[in-house]
């Protein structure tokens, strides 16, 4: 079995007596009643740090980059003290078969008891047609993913890639990039989506610490996102909302309105349709977020945000109706046709009517 904190302390020569004393001191330090000492002792005796396997598929690795930007808690503390990041090909020391062996070992020791963190997604198109677009140890990434997923306690889908498909799934999706929850034959582990391209660092670490602290999954919305961070739109808490309501908009880059921090709606801001915590938690330790730096939100935590027409258009594109249309262009086009038809019809009707009158006379 795995070593627990208690095992470690014992091995370092600490007696059971002083271990228990340590537990009651900890309880006191946390302001808990002495009864909690037993619970802490129990946890330390029986609970190793939860192993995390962080797999990488088709992606840009920005989610990992974002993760290490976390200020509270520091990425260092998450990795050293909270979880046991046993597999993450981006930072792990081992390579090749020594690396791959870890997945096997983890499943052996912690079957059903580790977290699978997925960054990126698999490309099923190539695999279905006999190719591979994401190869790990000579095999399709999907194989590694399925194997680990079937034994995981829970799956975290980091970022828009794992949650929705993201840029590689943008039309025409040449690799058949498929978000984690849509990969067939993945087992039954619950999936927590943490979308964003990338997600906010502190949101990522908060999701992990929530799970460790409360020993349960965060409560999720219908689409599998933690409600605590994804139940409101950027627009709902945007500090420029006053200008939106007032009807004060940036009309073009670097204009008077831009300098005064007017609303970016007319520049194509997707804040009104984007569920994310940017306008509340903000980025990089609460420093700023896209709108604060003058750029409209591009909706990076939303499903398929790449294919909704240009980023600088308020109205989305409707590709079904031709190359580049939006609702108004389609509507005005149709209304013009109908209006023309009506006019023509009215003219003919009038003509007929006068003819008929002539007939009757």
């Amino acid at each position, binding site marked *: 079995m795995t070593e627990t904190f208690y095992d470690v302390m014992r091995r370092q020569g600490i007696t059971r007596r002083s271990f228990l004393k340590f537990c009651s001191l900890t309880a006191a330090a946390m302001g808990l009643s002495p009864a909690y000492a037993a619970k802490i002792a129990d946890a330390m005796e029986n609970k190793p740090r939860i192993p995390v396997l962080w797999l990488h598929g088709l992606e840009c690795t920005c989610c990992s980059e974002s993760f290490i930007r976390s200020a509270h808690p520091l990425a260092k503390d998450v990795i050293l003290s909270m979880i046991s990041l046993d597999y993450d090909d981006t930072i792990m020391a081992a390579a090749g078969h020594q690396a791959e062996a870890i997945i096997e070992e983890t499943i052996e020791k912690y079957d059903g008891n580790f977290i699978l963190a997925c960054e990126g997604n698999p490309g099923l198109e190539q695999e279905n047609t006999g190719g591979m677009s994401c190869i790990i140890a000579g095999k399709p990434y999907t194989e590694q993913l399925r194997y680990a997923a079937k034994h995981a306690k829970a799956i975290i889908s980091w970022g828009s890639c794992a949650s929705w498909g993201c840029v590689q799934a943008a039309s025409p999706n040449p690799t058949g990039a498929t978000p984690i929850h849509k990969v067939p034959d993945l087992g039954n582990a619950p999936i927590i989506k943490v979308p964003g391209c990338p997600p906010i660092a502190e949101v990522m670490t908060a999701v992990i610490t929530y799970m460790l602290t409360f020993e349960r999954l965060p409560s999720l*919305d*219908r*689409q599998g996102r933690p*409600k605590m961070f994804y*139940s*409101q*739109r950027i627009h*709902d808490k945007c500090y420029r909302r*006053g*200008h*939106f*309501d*007032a*009807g*004060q*908009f*940036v*009309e073009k880059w670097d204009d*008077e*309105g831009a300098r005064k921090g*007017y609303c970016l*709606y*007319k520049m194509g801001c*997707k804040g*009104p*349709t*984007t*569920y994310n915590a940017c306008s509340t938690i903000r980025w990089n330790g609460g420093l700023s977020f896209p709108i604060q730096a003058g750029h409209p939100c591009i*909706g990076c935590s*939303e*499903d*398929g*945000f790449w294919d*909704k027409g240009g980023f600088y258009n*308020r*109205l*989305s594109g*409707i590709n079904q109706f031709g190359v580049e249309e*939006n*609702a*108004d262009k*389609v*509507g*005005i086009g*149709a*209304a013009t046709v*109908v*209006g023309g038809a*009506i006019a023509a*019809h*009215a003219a*003919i*009707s009038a003509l*007929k*009517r006068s003819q008929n009158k002539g007939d009757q006379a």
Partner: protein
Amino acid sequence: MSTKTKNEQSVYVYEVPIRLWHWINALAITVLAITGYLIGSPLSSLSGEAYEHFLMGYIRFAHFAAGYVFVIGFIGRIYWAFVGNSHAKQIFLPPIFSGKFWSEVWHEMKWYLFIAKEPKKYVGHNPMAIIFMHVMLVWGTFFMIFTGLALYGEGAGFDSWQYSWFSSWIIPLFGQSQDVHTFHHLGMWVILIFVMMHVYVAFREDIMSRQTLISTMISGWRTFKDNRKD
């Protein structure tokens, strides 16, 4: 009450609630379309401080207020379809399994294509109107109400009834919020196109058909211009 002269007979067709609904609805749609369009493409910016203005806020408020009038009116209209006279059901239940109905549709079509010389007489709506109203207006209204309330729920928040009854399933159904906006916006054009055709036809038929139309929607009485059968 009716004054039945030789070639002028009148029937009471549209009861008060129907007429009331019709005109309130027409007004609500007008407000919704204008404000809706301005939500999608706002007016030019106002200068000065934000607290001095609430233009976008008022436009949205008008949209939501008209939206609720539209919703409540429609609920009332559905209720009246149950309790009102037979004409009150027409736009909800086109008799699509009746051969006669379709042959009348065919006749109306010929009339509009200037093939038939004369339209038929109808006490209620003509069959083509029923089809159009059913598809574009009844379903269009359902669509606008559902998508509209789904959008409204987003602002009202996770705990609102609008969110749990509408947004929670409609947004995933469309994909994401922006798609709901797009289709709600497209829905506007469907309804506007209906209105264009409807108003044109109302005037045209008022002049060219064998019965009154516009005054009917005002007074409730349908007056026929001749007393030939059919």
